């Protein structure tokens, strides 16, 4: 029903809660108890505080290149919140909120951005693939995981995240197409944050919406207010239901905005106006949910402050741990190329170890 009511060709955007935190579609509002709502809110705040700390550490020269998520927390938390443990998540690199929602350890996440592969080695029961940098290439993995689930009759769905820029890639088309042909339980979740580094959304595609691209591949697509956590939650829930009941893939376009820089190496003032950023700040997803929670009497100023402080200190603790444990053992560089180290790798490693030994560095 939802997908019929919000035809992307009509540019209709699905929204439940407006900018003021008011529920404008009460019939569609999910019935979630206070603890769950607070949990969602806390995850968004944790995402924000984690970003803020990372940016701070980066400026202090303690963190490497970092891709912040500020402004996109609702899209990330609201969508990942719907998944079950057995489901899969196939990320790009700007999905911190989704990682945290799925239970990934912040220490691991920071460790990754700190420059250590062990950051991508999550425990068996957390089904998140590593960060994938080559734009849109990972969408195919999401189709493959979902197809394998379907063929093996496992009740699993797969969500994959990507940006608006990714939709210009051939891999996007190939993945959507394949998912359509084999009706794989894949949720294509596009965080349309209006930019691919400096290139605005209008330069990526002449389509009015990204959601409408779904139609050509024989699946439903929906345009959702990406800063409305409830709309994101409901749309993703519907997509997950479709996947679980064998109805195939769905494309969700979360319409949002990248408030921060592309990464810490980027200066967005070069290519966009500050007024535009200020306009979008008024739509901030965390402010919006806070307004809702306070209006409903579910959150006090005091509690809100405590949450922010707690989240900030969790981030700080995690980073301290990473700084103390972030180094890479030489052998680990060689050890994971193949299941068994090849004679060539062994030889190269040992020769280098000899060299280090000779200099007293090992």
């Amino acid at each position, binding site marked *: 029903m939802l997908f019929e009511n919000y035809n992307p060709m009509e540019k209709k955007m699905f929204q439940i809660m407006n900018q003021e935190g008011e529920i404008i579609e009460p019939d569609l509002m999910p019935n979630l108890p206070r603890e769950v709502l607070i949990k969602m809110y806390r995850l968004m705040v944790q995402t924000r505080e984690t970003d803020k700390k990372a940016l701070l550490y980066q400026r202090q020269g303690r963190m490497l290149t970092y891709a912040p998520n500020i402004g996109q927390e609702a899209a990330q938390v609201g969508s990942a919140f719907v998944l079950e443990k057995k489901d899969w998540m196939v990320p790009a690199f700007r999905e911190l909120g989704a990682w945290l929602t799925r239970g990934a350890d912040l220490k691991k996440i920071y460790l990754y951005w700190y420059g250590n592969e062990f950051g991508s080695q999550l425990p068996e029961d957390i089904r998140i693939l590593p960060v994938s940098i*080559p734009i849109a290439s990972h969408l195919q993995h999401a189709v493959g995981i979902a*197809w394998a689930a379907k*063929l093996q009759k496992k009740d699993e769905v797969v969500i994959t995240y990507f940006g608006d820029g990714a939709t210009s890639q051939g891999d996007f088309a190939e993945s959507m*197409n394949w998912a359509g042909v084999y009706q794989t339980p894949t949720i294509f979740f596009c965080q349309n944050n209006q930019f691919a580094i400096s290139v605005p959304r209008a330069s990526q595609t002449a389509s009015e919406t990204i959601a409408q691209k779904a139609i050509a591949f024989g699946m439903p697509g929906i345009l959702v207010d990406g800063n409305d956590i409830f709309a994101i939650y409901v749309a993703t829930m519907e997509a997950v239901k479709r996947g679980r009941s064998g109805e195939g893939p769905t494309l969700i376009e979360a319409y949002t905005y990248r408030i921060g820089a592309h990464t810490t190496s980027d200066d967005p003032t070069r290519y966009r106006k500050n007024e535009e950023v200020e306009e979008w700040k008024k739509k901030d997803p965390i402010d919006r949910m806070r307004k809702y929670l306070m209006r409903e009497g579910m959150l006090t100023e005091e509690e809100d402050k405590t949450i922010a402080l707690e989240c900030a200190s969790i981030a700080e603790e995690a980073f301290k741990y990473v700084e103390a444990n972030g180094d890479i053992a030489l052998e680990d560089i060689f050890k994971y*190329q*193949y299941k068994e180290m090849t*004679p*060539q790798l062994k030889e190269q490693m040992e020769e280098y170890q000899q060299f280090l030994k000779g200099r007293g560095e090992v």
Partner: protein
Amino acid sequence: MAVMNLLQAVNETLRQEMKRDDRVVVFGEDVGYEGGVFRATADLQKEFGTDRCMDSPLAESAIVGVGIGMGINGMIPVVEMQFMGFVYPAFNQIICHVARMRNRSRGRYTVPMVIRMPYGGGIRALEHHSESTEALFAHIPGLKVVIPSTPYDAKGLLASAIRDEDPVIFMEPKRIYRAFKQEVPEEEYLIPIGKAKVVKEGQSITIISWGASMREVLKATEMAEAKGIYPEVIDLRTISPIDGETIINSVKKTGRVLIVHEAAKTNGVGAELVSIINEKAFLHLEAPPTRLTGFDTIFPLPKGEHHYIPTPERIVNKITELVNYLT
């Protein structure tokens, strides 16, 4: 024992492996109903159904990319590139993900996939249907590259590739797909990946080759023997990781080495072999390690291809040159 050609050996191995392990799935362009344009997957869909042997959309990048996901979620995809000349759209997936998933996730996720592809010239084909670009893959850490030269080897190596927990690029010499038959045991057997084979023992010179070129090399060897030169012939079998030990042992014995490959010369696998020999057997050499290969040209269209692929005559000529070097 059944007598079969290389193509039949591939088909038979896929069948056996699919029977042995129901995680094995086979897909690619025209692979399902049609059984592949060369018929390497003939009748597999009939036997195992459309959930085990599938036609894929015409999208090489996705054939590999989707295979990665399937490998991560418990299956063993054996995918086909219709021709090696069309693998390039999948390079991003192969280099950025297939080869790296294990390392990237420190062993949490692996891609136990086999990417099969017919390679090589000599079949009077259209453009893009004749190249041998094994060096492109052999340069990538995280991949294994395997090339059989006989029906017997095809079976044992393909079975090993499918069971290998690392991704394997399995290149099939299409010039000899149907060129000759050989006795191939019906029961399963494995030929280890990463080991070369001394096909023929000799003292005069070591010849290293692989894939379709092995036939020309063996013919040339017979011609040399008629002249009283006794080459030792090594079939590399695995292009990556290279079996340096077998090569070095042989070169230490013969002191002379000729490498024959069909691929272009510069920056080819032959160059790597020469380097290994220089690093490990320099003082045993009695002649410069030498390559006889395809030219550094685009592979010619059919009217010119007989000039490109090293012939037994050219190989013998080089053998003689090297055996007579400074003597």
